[in-house]
């Protein structure tokens, strides 16, 4: 106990002795709830971390405090929140050191997720060791399937490779059954973990669904020209084209497909497809393109969220970051349900509750989000959510994708 809390504590004890109080007020409420995060702010991943994650931490911090804080039932009062932030420079070892520091020296009440799959994975064992519940918001990898259950304090929020790929395979199989498509699929992916795993998960699903994969090749991440590859794809005459791509290639292959007049009836690009900049660049040519990791702009509360984001940062929110905000919302709900900072209880509430958030209903099964938004589609110049099709807010698939005009 440092001196300040000691003094406050004694004041509360004295107060309790002299004035009649309800038992709930007898114990001093904390004057702040402190959230700590170590995240990449410098280096190549800094910008992505900033727009996806940090911006939502800042926005949430402001909105919660504007509303008076988080309600702690046990003390019968709202307690404002405070953020402690460090830069992990994109280095996992730095992240681990800083996480220990947040927990042991800064003694934060809660820890928030870092950015990017490998960093989320790196942090999971350590927050688990100290029993800090953390919702990992930017990790998508097959490893979560085996490792998830091993770390009961880590929760995984976004669509993992199977959840992201199976709906695509199923959609193509359905179209084939309806006779709208022959089911000839071409898939390409950058040779990075994300691309490889999603491609594998898709191939597995496609095999089960009886699809014919006529082309499957990887390309170098950071390639400056994908035209030859798209030519090869075109030569196989597929009716569905999938790219488990990263943002720069997502942009490039969309442009080069247009230049070559490659018009698949079903087209999917992965990361970067939800960016507002994607729409800015291609205008209405984005219509019909399927994308990874969307959010529903029509969900209840999204208008307010979009406005608050615009007011604070003077720019539009990133659809791929809405899940981060949702994770903060449900963390708050869990804390309020427990009514105090008891991390074990908070963890159990997170594990066993169905939360209503900006990103739809979230329920964890074995710490994995059971039904995250996986696939979206641009329709009439707007991002919509398509799969999982049974989730509230899902729109029907627009098929076929309109030809490039």
């Amino acid at each position, binding site marked *: 106990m440092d001196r300040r809390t000691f003094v406050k504590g004694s004041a509360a004890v004295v107060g309790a002795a002299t004035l009649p109080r309800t038992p709930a007020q007898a114990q001093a409420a904390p004057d702040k709830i402190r959230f700590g995060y170590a995240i990449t702010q410098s280096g190549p991943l800094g*910008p992505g971390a900033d727009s996806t994650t940090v911006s939502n931490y800042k926005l949430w911090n402001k909105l919660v405090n504007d509303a008076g804080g988080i309600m702690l039932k046990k003390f019968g009062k709202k307690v404002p929140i405070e953020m402690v932030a460090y830069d992990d420079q994109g280095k996992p070892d730095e992240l681990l050191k800083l996480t220990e520091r947040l927990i042991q020296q800064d003694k934060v009440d809660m820890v928030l997720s870092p950015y990017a799959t490998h960093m989320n994975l790196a942090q999971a064992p350590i927050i688990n060791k100290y029993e800090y519940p953390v919702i990992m918001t930017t990790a998508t990898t097959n490893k979560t399937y085996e490792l998830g259950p091993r770390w009961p304090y880590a929760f995984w929020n976004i669509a993992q490779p199977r959840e992201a790929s199976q709906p695509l395979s199923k959609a193509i199989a359905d179209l084939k059954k309806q006779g709208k498509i022959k089911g000839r699929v071409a898939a390409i992916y950058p040779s990075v973990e994300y691309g490889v795993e999603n491609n594998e998960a898709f191939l597995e699903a496609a095999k089960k669904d009886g699809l014919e994969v006529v082309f499957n090749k990887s390309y170098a991440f*950071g*390639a*400056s*020209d994908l035209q030859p590859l798209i030519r090869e794809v075109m030569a196989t005459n597929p009716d569905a084209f999938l790219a488990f791509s990263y943002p720069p290639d997502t942009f*490039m292959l969309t442009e080069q497909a247009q230049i070559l007049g490659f018009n698949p009836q079903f087209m999917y690009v992965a990361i970067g497809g939800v960016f507002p900049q994607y729409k800015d660049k291609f205008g209405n040519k984005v219509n019909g393109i399927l994308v990874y990791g969307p959010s529903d702009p029509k969900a209840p509360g999204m208008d307010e969220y979009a406005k608050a984001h615009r007011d604070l940062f003077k720019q539009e929110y990133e659809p791929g970051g809405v899940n981060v905000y949702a994770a903060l919302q449900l963390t708050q709900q869990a804390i309020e349900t427990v009514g105090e900072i008891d991390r074990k209880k908070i963890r159990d509430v997170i594990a066993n509750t169905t939360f209503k958030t900006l990103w739809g209903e979230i329920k964890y099964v074995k710490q994995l989000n059971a039904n995250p938004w996986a696939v979206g589609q641009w329709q009439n110049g707007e991002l919509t959510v398509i799969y999982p099709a049974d989730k509230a807010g899902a729109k029907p698939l627009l098929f076929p994708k309109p030809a490039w005009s």
Partner: protein
Amino acid sequence: MILFEVFLGGLLLGGMYGLIALGLNLQYGVARILNLSYGEFFMGGAFTAFFTIMLWKLNPLLSLFVSLPIAFVINWLIYQYLMIPLVRRAADQDALDADVVLVTFGLFFVFQGLALVNWSGDLRGYSFLSSPVHLVGATVAFNRLFAFLAACALAFALFLVLRYTRFGTALRAMTIDPVAASLVGIDVRKFSALAFAAGGALAAASGMLVSTFISFSSTIGVEYTLKALIVVILAGVGRVTGTLAAGLVLGVVESVGGYLVDPQLTIAINFGLFMLVLLLRPTGLFTRA
């Protein structure tokens, strides 16, 4: 037929490599400054073009009227006020290189930081001349073709200046031997500053041209500094026309190799060629032995 298109695509890609390296070769070859913040001017040129078309709805080529003078002046100032003190105190080229690398590395962080603060780290891109052009049965993107032609024009113009003007002769003399050049009455400091500034302006121009077909963000600079550096080393330091040729070789080998072997290997092929040249011809492909 596809192979021809792949070859053509490689040529265009190579033109881009040559283009981004031209300015660096002026800076490194003539002014003898290895400028690690070079790519930041490329990034600045790309952003100026982006804002010109997306914000002000003007032709992005017009952005050159803004970005070129700004890049020229900033680079001139960098040379005059940051590099000259280093040049003065350096005992030899090696000592100078070490100092310069540290200072320009710092500059790279400053410029990138400023860009991040002002323009965020979002990925940007816009559509300009993104229509197909059909050449002898092959299809290429107009914006890539345009950047390629601009690269050729710039390299040719630079070649003419270096070969046929007094100023160019002075620059060539400095490339070969700065000490002797100053002995015959060439104002090495002034001309170096001009060459350095012109290199920065070329970086901005190449950023503008490349941004028509490649998406970019505030952090893209370092990637293009490295690409440019590889081309400069391949070509040979100070070989301006060789720079374009080296870029073309790199582009064609990358594209055709990637197509014939495996698209996963494009970048590996790139570096493989680089290492081969370093081993067999360490002074560059286009230097007189």
